[in-house]
């Protein structure tokens, strides 16, 4: 896994240097990301430059990105061929404009073609309607990129993969032993009224129960395939999945125990302070109140207390972004 610190660089095209925006993905990286997403979803690239991609979405990507559930339920029920949407994604607006200007002449000719088509339509020659291609600027934080992120989260959760051997087996009967690993990408949230997160990528060998950190980083250098390669055998699992789970959790628990929790202690003392303050506010009110009002005031006090707890109570939660079984060369 790449450490987030190393990818932290500022927006290369940004002229604004007033303050560090802490951008974690620059234009180039966003471009690469979108391109890989479109490849993974088998979309058709119609046109591209380093600053834009014009794409016709695959049915799969269209369902994920265009937010047209009615259209899709209609297509599904009638078993129709879908007409998916096209998009023009722009990554660097200024550079794209320069590019577009030089191509303007060419497009003028296209409009003439469109005019011809319009004439054809009036003459009764019906062509398919020209689909408008929406333009969108994809910058870090744009809603479309956010949507892409969410889509990958939904569709990249569970994998089962095999390492492709470096070279062909020398002998047709030779077989290489593979180890199954359980990979877990944890996200740990530390929150009170504020919040911080950490990623922990763990791998647990199902043969030995050995647990390694930064497991995803290790996977990055390996060619992986969904199919088991020939001349490979998978070593017998020495531990159950349940056991692997508890090893991973114990590992994380041990690690987190070593952290400083000053922030949580502070939050708790703030919480206690606020709760006491609430009591001091409501106590005289309750005392002075008529009998029938008392219940109402007490209910309000309880509500306020709930809110304060909701606001300040410190929590640490480990959830999983995605996980998988990876069969890797060798026994360890």
């Amino acid at each position, binding site marked *: 896994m790449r450490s987030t610190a190393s990818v932290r660089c500022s927006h290369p095209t940004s002229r604004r240097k007033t303050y560090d925006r802490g951008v974690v993905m620059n234009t180039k990286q966003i471009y690469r990301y979108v391109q890989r997403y479109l490849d993974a979803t088998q979309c058709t690239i119609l046109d591209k430059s380093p600053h834009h991609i014009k794409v016709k979405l695959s049915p799969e990507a269209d369902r994920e990105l265009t937010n047209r559930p009615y259209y899709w339920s209609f297509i599904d029920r009638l078993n129709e061929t879908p007409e998916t949407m096209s998009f023009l994604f722009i990554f660097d607006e200024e550079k794209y404009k320069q590019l577009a200007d030089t191509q303007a002449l060419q497009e003028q000719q296209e409009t003439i073609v469109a005019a011809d088509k319009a004439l054809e339509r009036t003459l009764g020659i019906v062509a398919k309607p020209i689909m408008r291609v929406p333009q969108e600027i994809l910058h870090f*934080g744009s809603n479309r990129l956010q949507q892409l992120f969410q889509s990958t989260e939904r569709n990249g959760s569970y994998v089962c993969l095999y390492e492709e051997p470096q070279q062909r087996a020398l002998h047709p009967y030779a077989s290489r032993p593979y180890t199954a690993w359980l990979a877990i990408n944890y996200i740990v949230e530390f929150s009170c009224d504020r919040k911080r997160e950490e990623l922990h990528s763990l791998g647990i060998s199902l043969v030995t129960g050995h647990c390694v950190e930064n497991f995803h980083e290790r996977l990055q250098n390996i060619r992986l395939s969904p199919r088991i390669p020939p001349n490979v055998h998978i070593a017998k699992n020495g531990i159950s*999945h349940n056991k692997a789970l508890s090893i991973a959790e114990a590992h994380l628990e041990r690690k987190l125990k070593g952290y400083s*929790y000053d922030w949580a202690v502070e939050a708790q003392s703030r919480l206690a302070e606020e709760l006491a*303050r609430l009591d*001091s*506010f409501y106590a005289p*009110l309750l005392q002075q109140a008529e009998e029938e009002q008392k219940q109402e005031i007490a209910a309000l006090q309880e509500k306020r207390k709930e809110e304060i707890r909701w606001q300040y109570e410190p929590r640490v939660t480990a959830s999983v972004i995605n*996980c998988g079984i990876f069969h890797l060369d060798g026994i360890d």
Partner: protein
Amino acid sequence: MNNSFYSNTVINQPDVQKAIHPSLNLNFNRAWFNELQQRINQNGPWDQWSMYQLALEAKQATLINSFDELLCLRSLPGFEPMQHQLDTAKRVLHEMGGRAILADEVGLGKTIEAGLILKEYIVRGLVKKALILVPASLVLQWVRELNTKFGIQAVAQRKSHSWGYDIVVASLDTAKREPHRETVLATDYDLIIIDEAHKLKNKKTTNYQFAVQLSKKYCLLLTATPIQNDLDELFNLISLLKPGQLGAQGEFNSNYVVDKRLPKNEDQLQDVLSSIMIRNRRGDGGIHFTKRIVRNINLQLSPEEQSLYDAVTNFVQQQARQDGIDISSILSLVTLQREVCSSRDAVFLTLVNMFKKTSEDSPLRPKIWELVECIRAITSNTKAEKALEIIEQCNDKVILFTEYRATQEYLLQFFSKHNIAAVPYRGGMNRGKKDWMMDLFRGKARVLIATEAGGEGINLQFCNNMINFDLPWNPMRVEQRIGRVHRLGQTQDVNIFNLCTVNTIEEHILHLLHEKINLFELVIGELDHIIERIEASNGSIEQQLAKAILRGADPHTLTNEINSIGEVFTSYQQEKNLR
């Protein structure tokens, strides 16, 4: 995959908690594990390796690395907030636990500050459901601003089902009514923002009762009118955010209050306040405004107009002396005089209404009718012609303010006759129409004619010429008018034209506002304080002026009367300078 390698028994693992600190548990969410086992048992379906990588990279890119960095800026590349706005957002997020009163002076961008805070919480995943309560006239503006400036997909509440959206902007008046009330009160909001929160300072109002019942984690109250002058109101507002911050009511009274408006232990009070309220002032360093160029244009009424004015003045003086008259009638009488200075249409409408209201045998009727007859003699409007001249000269967009609806109508006709595209804007318009008018003004129209009701909350930085066709008496409202164009984001110096008819009460009002208060040129931060101080003793400033006008039958006495009101301003400023 060969199933025999794996155990077939799936035991659903419940979530667990492990203590990692004496007072803190680590919660393990295990739903994923059960799903994984299921897929192993059925050998799939499995996701793509590339998607798996992309999902993890997305998380790495959006990871929240630290507790107290302002992360939302990286998501807003085209947006550059001012330093004081960033500082405010940071303080609310890091020191105030997300509950604060944002009390910047008009035009310093409270909306931006609130937007930054909201965005930061959204980016951090601390806010999902938010409710923004604003006056009806500002709903669309908020929605637009959140969408375009902050990329927050906010929705204007229109139908009952709108409440289901994550970020909803609604009018307080709608939200507090059934059937909406029930829905809103049954929802736990991660963040509630209430704009124009001074509408909540009275504990007994339905607004306040409703606000108390809301369920919220974080809360921002936005107000430009300070509440420091009435301590009870201040107490109420803070009780919405942090009950007990100022102690219980009794303690508060004994610790901080001498009289309703007179605090004691002021330093200590300021200390406590600064933990919950942020107030940036125009005078503070680092906030740059363009200049205000003020021109007072003195106009001589035409003989016909002048005779109407005199007739009306006579009538007003007579009426005021005759009855044992109450203050509201005084106000409406003096309004007649002010209306003559604006347009004959304005005064005509009022007179006709007055006529209708008086009984048929009243001796008033013929008198009123006489005045109406006077109006007939008037064929032109001196001010309108001057306004036209100004507009033609400056050759740019102009916003014109008038107090009266009838004047607005008249001017619309007048300008269209002279081929100047003008659009109206007033409080009574529905949201859609207001938006439409704004778009027209931004586009083709040269002139926007706004009545006072339209003055609040509209942003017109793209226009730098402003005509006060007539002046409100309350300096705060004049300041609000100016604030529409003279605000952050205005790149040009702002031209302010005050049209003033000589030998009328207008002359005196302008004298008070301009000479005494120096309202137009100086940006007076504490205007609101001063006004509250004036109003504390003798009723609203409008009422005081009306009384002064009736007392001061001749110009000389009137000047003295008005000067004495102006004294309060002068003395306040002297006091301030001494401090």
